[in-house]
């Protein structure tokens, strides 16, 4: 019997002469090492971003009492660094954007995924990509020169309001919401669709009762990432929300009041502060708050995605 292994592994050895083989093996080793490094560097970068925010922003944290830091008066010239009005501003504009974008985005995704004939899909999808491609500054510019006057004519005291910002933001987050929801709908196994149709359900019944529930988690992710996108938007918001660092008075016309968001504050004021000053470091502190908020939202969305991704990861070596 030939059970005992022979020493001669020439049997499976490469056809290449051994020196060339060794050299080739080493090149491959280096390449694979670099690829791994590239992959892991993404973690490093997130860490570095947080580190540099902290580095410049800790002074604010150390020198200003926390209560004042989260106070409701933002008036840097007199050393009032309460960022609460800015947080409220960001939240209000974002909520407005979500209220507008959610129904529009999900419905459009449903239309694209389930109802649109092929030729419409071929027109609509690139158009939505175009929307994703329009720079935020261009939309902000349009909001500033075209949309704001219209809103003012509608009776608002100024055209630069929460509503203006929300409207622009909504359209900016639409591509995110639409494309991710559409993916989620697409990922619903064909068998569910077939099963429902084969019983005699109409297309709408199939969509509403089978496909949407099955795609639920993906749709939630879409909405979350849409929110993340909206809360971090800077230029457009800065141009159209009026930049008033006050907390709007609750009431029916609240949406027609101006606010100032966290992002806009950084963008508008960083250019005018001395490096190393307290104001400077507070602006970084706002950056930290933004980072933490978006990090939270995205990590949550990422976790939801992770549970979904298992299925998709079959295309691997």
């Amino acid at each position, binding site marked *: *019997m*030939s*059970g*005992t*292994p*022979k020493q001669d*592994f020439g*049997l*499976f*050895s*490469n*056809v*290449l002469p051994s020196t*060339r*083989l060794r050299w*080739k093996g080493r090149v491959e080793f280096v390449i694979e090492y670099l690829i791994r490094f590239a992959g892991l560097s993404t973690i490093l970068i997130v860490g570095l971003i947080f580190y540099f925010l902290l580095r410049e922003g800790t002074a604010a944290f150390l020198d200003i009492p926390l209560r004042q830091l989260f106070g409701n008066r933002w008036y840097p010239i007199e050393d009032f660094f309460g960022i609460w009005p800015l947080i409220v501003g960001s939240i209000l504009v974002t909520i407005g954007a979500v209220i507008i974008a959610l129904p529009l985005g999900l419905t459009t995704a449903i239309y694209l995924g389930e109802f649109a004939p092929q030729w419409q899909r071929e027109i609509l999808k690139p158009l939505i990509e175009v929307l994703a491609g329009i720079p935020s500054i261009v939309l902000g510019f349009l909001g500033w020169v075209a949309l704001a006057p219209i809103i003012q004519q509608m009776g608002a005291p100024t055209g630069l309001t929460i509503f203006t910002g929300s409207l622009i933001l909504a359209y900016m987050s639409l591509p995110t919401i639409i494309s991710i929801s559409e993916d989620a709908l697409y990922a619903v196994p064909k068998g569910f669709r077939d099963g429902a149709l084969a019983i005699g359900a109409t297309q709408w019944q199939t969509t509403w009762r089978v496909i949407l529930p099955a795609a639920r988690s993906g749709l939630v992710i879409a909405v979350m990432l849409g929110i993340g996108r909206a809360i971090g938007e800077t230029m457009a918001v800065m141009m159209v929300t009026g930049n008033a660092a006050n907390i709007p008075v609750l009431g029916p016309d609240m949406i027609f009041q101006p606010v100032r968001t966290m992002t806009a504050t950084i963008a508008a004021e960083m250019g005018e502060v001395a490096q190393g000053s307290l104001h400077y470091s507070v602006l970084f502190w706002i950056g930290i708050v933004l980072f933490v908020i978006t990090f939270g939202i995205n990590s949550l969305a990422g976790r939801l995605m992770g549970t979904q991704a298992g299925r998709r990861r079959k295309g*691997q*070596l």
Partner: protein
Amino acid sequence: MSITPAKIAIQDVYFTYGDGAEALRDISLDIYEKEIFVLFGPSRSGKTTLLRLLNRLSDLFEDATVRGTILFDGQDIFDYRVNVAGLRRRISMVFAVPTPLPGSIRDNLTYGLRMAGIRNERVLRERVERSLQQAALWNEVKDRLDKSAFALSGGQQQRLCLARSLALEPDVIVLDNPTSGLDPLSTESVEESLQDLKQRYTIIIVPHSVQQGSRIADRAAFLLDGELIEVGKATQIFVEPQDQRTEDYITGRFG
């Protein structure tokens, strides 16, 4: 009793996927040189897994665990010193669906050789012609070797894949349901090629159906739920199987 040493000896092999599903349990069987060995059984009985173990394509399954030994010409293929690429050139595989690589017919045939570092044009040309002739494809494609491999019909593509394996001059050819995507006529031509190839190669095949298995096999093994139920000469296993389950399957009680 046969005293011929086995070409491939599978000894007490267990295979468990990363998710804990046990695909193979205690498989032991010998495959001899220059025979057509048929592995059959219902879907998910472990046939494909076993095939992929032979040339260690099973390495692709993440976190899967293998226990047991597979000896190829007496050498353990799971030894850490084994050159896996080299092993795969010796035990070459043809898949269920015709899988030409993007590129010309010639590119397909020489791919494995080029990856092995063979650049000599003359050698490559010779291998292309010889392997195409062995797969009974030479006459059909000799004038369009530089055309896309995808322009061939399904049956031709599958014979091209066979030729691509033959170009490596392997010892063993492993075929995983090679006629599943083919129409009946192409199926016949592939089956005919196999009979010729038996003269030179050891052939291990998962057939498309029990009927196909019985048409081509010298010896055969029946797998069910990852276990080896029965192995033996085709004349015996397809005609008067020893095990009731084999008989049930062959006579179509299930599957």
